């Protein structure tokens, strides 16, 4: 009887391994091993000798990474880490807030599907193309945004935003809000559809107005969706690359440099792969923090 149980257990493990092995092997060889090699590379020099934290010190003391003398109130460049942080600080609330507002406004509205499709177009546009569009949106000669600003008398803002260090980063962030807001709007729309109508009817009977209903029913009910949107958006903001690459190439004067682009320049322009690996390791660390926060939050009973 004991032998039978033992064989049964082996059989279960055998089928488990049989079904998962192909995927596990792919993950092992194409994700885990390269990731470990990248981390190892960040602790070595060109000759492969172990150098401890030297690469990290060099990368973090590079003005492209941290340029504190220029930090607000001075204009950018502030360094890639700060630019990424600014991106999160501005882009995240704008995307989440605007996505929620659009989802609520378009919930059950006439022609909502069509309007949502239009807004979602930004998401299906390749980001590399999105970068080019952003560049032209804010261009002095061809841009619609600058034309509108000039038309309303804001002539100072009617110039090419991506040419000036003060306006280049805001241009990219605002442009990326347009590209990304479709994502949060669609998720919120799906979330809204899951909230039972009874809640609103009961609240209305109790005398709650639309704002109170939104605040006390809609927002708490959408909490799990918000968690997903926040986590995905922050991860996207940390690894932002293509928009910056095509719109400004990190300039002018490093005013829009971000971590992923810096990694690219280290690797493919300076041919300093160990420094590129160092930036990659830092990025992994930052994304891990977000990932762990997300896992902990979603696991908690609240």
């Amino acid at each position: 009887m004991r032998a039978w149980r033992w064989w049964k257990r082996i059989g279960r493990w055998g089928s488990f391994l049989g079904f998962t092995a192909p995927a596990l092997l792919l993950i092992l060889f194409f994700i885990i091993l390269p990731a470990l090699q990248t981390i190892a590379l960040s602790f070595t020099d060109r000759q492969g000798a172990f150098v401890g934290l030297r690469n990290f010190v060099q990368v973090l003391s590079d003005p492209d990474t941290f340029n504190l003398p220029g930090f607000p109130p001075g204009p950018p460049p502030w360094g890639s880490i700060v630019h990424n942080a600014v991106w999160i600080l501005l882009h995240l609330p704008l995307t989440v807030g605007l996505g929620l507002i659009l989802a609520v406004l378009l919930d059950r509205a006439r022609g909502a599907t069509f309007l949502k499709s239009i807004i979602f177009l930004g998401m299906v546009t390749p980001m590399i193309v999105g970068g080019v569009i952003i560049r032209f949106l804010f261009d002095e000669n061809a841009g619609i945004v600058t034309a509108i600003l000039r038309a309303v008398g804001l002539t100072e803002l009617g110039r090419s935003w991506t040419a000036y260090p003060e306006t280049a980063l805001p241009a990219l962030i605002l442009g990326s809000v347009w590209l990304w807001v479709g994502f949060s709007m669609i998720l919120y729309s799906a979330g809204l559809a899951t909230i039972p109508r009874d809640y609103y009817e009961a609240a209305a009977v109790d005398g709650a107005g639309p704002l109170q209903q939104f605040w006390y029913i809609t927002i708490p009910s959408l909490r799990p969706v918000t968690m997903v949107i926040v986590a995905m958006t922050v991860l996207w903001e940390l690894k932002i690359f293509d928009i910056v690459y095509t719109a400004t190439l990190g300039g002018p004067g490093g005013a829009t440099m971000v971590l992923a682009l810096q990694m690219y320049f280290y690797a493919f322009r300076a041919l300093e792969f160990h420094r590129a690996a160092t930036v990659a390791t830092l990025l992994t660390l930052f994304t891990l923090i977000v990932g762990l926060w997300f896992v902990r939050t979603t696991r908690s009973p609240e």
Partner: protein
Amino acid sequence: MKRVGFALVVLMLAVSACVPAATPTPERIVETRVIERTVPVEKTVEVTKVIPTLTVIGPWAGAEMDQFLPVLKAAEEKLGVQIRYRIYRAEDLSQVLPPQFEAKQAPGDVIFMWDWWVRENKDHAVDLTDLWQKEASQFVIQPSTVDGRVYAVPYVLFVKPGFWYKKSFFQKHNLKPPTTWEEFLALLDQISKIPGVKKAIISGDGVGWPLSDIVEHFLITFGGPELQENLIAGKVRFTDPQVRAIFAERLVPLLGKYFSDPVEWTQAIDLWWNEEYGLFFMGNWLTGMVKDPNDLGVFTLPGARGVVGGTDWAFIPKYSENVEAAKQLIAFMISKEGMEIRAKQGGKLASRKDISPDVYPPADRALAEALAKIERPNVPDLDDTVGGDWQRTFWDQLKLLWVRPQALDSVLRTLDARFPTR
């Protein structure tokens, strides 16, 4: 039961005797061999000639590509190969090629790339020394070598001769090309005052190289070709008083007043051609990108003894499956015949000495004749020669300088600090 079994065996044996054997018996094999030996058999062998297909990767698109394709067509006819052309900028190739090379793959058989990059990656490039030495004496430009070996060969020349203008625009407004610095400043003033003109000079932008071309022209004009060469060699620093003076006294005062903000350079061509701006600094490939090349005029900054001249560099990756055919293609492209075909299209100048100016279209011929009077028409390009991440920094810092001229000292310090030899 035994009887039934016995009957079945007999039946099977009988059936097998009637059916032809699936496999020949040993006797039959011997018989076949004898027949083959005694009866001559005439065989027709079909020989299929395999025509190699070469992939050429270059940076030229649009009008520039149209000017290059006739060369490839001629090569197809002459070499009996098929050639397909793919467009990749050097910036993109620098990303694509390293992983391809690591996998011992090559996306093309002949690739145009920065020469500094090929030198850095020489282990993945075919040695072209023998091919080059046959033609070397005919060329006005020589390749850099690694341990005496050549891995990338020069193709046609581009020059950055100075400020282009429309002859019709100058005639209409009674303007003349300047012969002194003062006349240059007066010209800029005159252009700025013309109704409808936004700024005297439109500044081209892209990844940043059009601005670096302007800066190099100022450096060569006021510091001589030697200054440019010393900067490349790292013998003179960007913080050097001579360099700073050229920036501070000659270039920076013009930036806000006469130069426009950086505008994407192909868009800039249209704006300049529509006479919203008077002058445009660009390389000679511009002749192939305007509606009427015969309306083009160009002048250097007064007193310039040299202008930047460079070339596009071709190399063959080691992992090409058609190395020999690729070598033949490069040999054809840099031959007199191949280069004449390219020169005829305009937009580039031949890098061979034995190409007659008569080959060029009128606008390019005028340029070639004007360049003949310049002491140094092929001063090496500063950022292309230094290369690496410094090149990107140079472009990026100049974009900053263009809109923040007061950041001059910070820009020069950054360029100096990030120079490869520092």
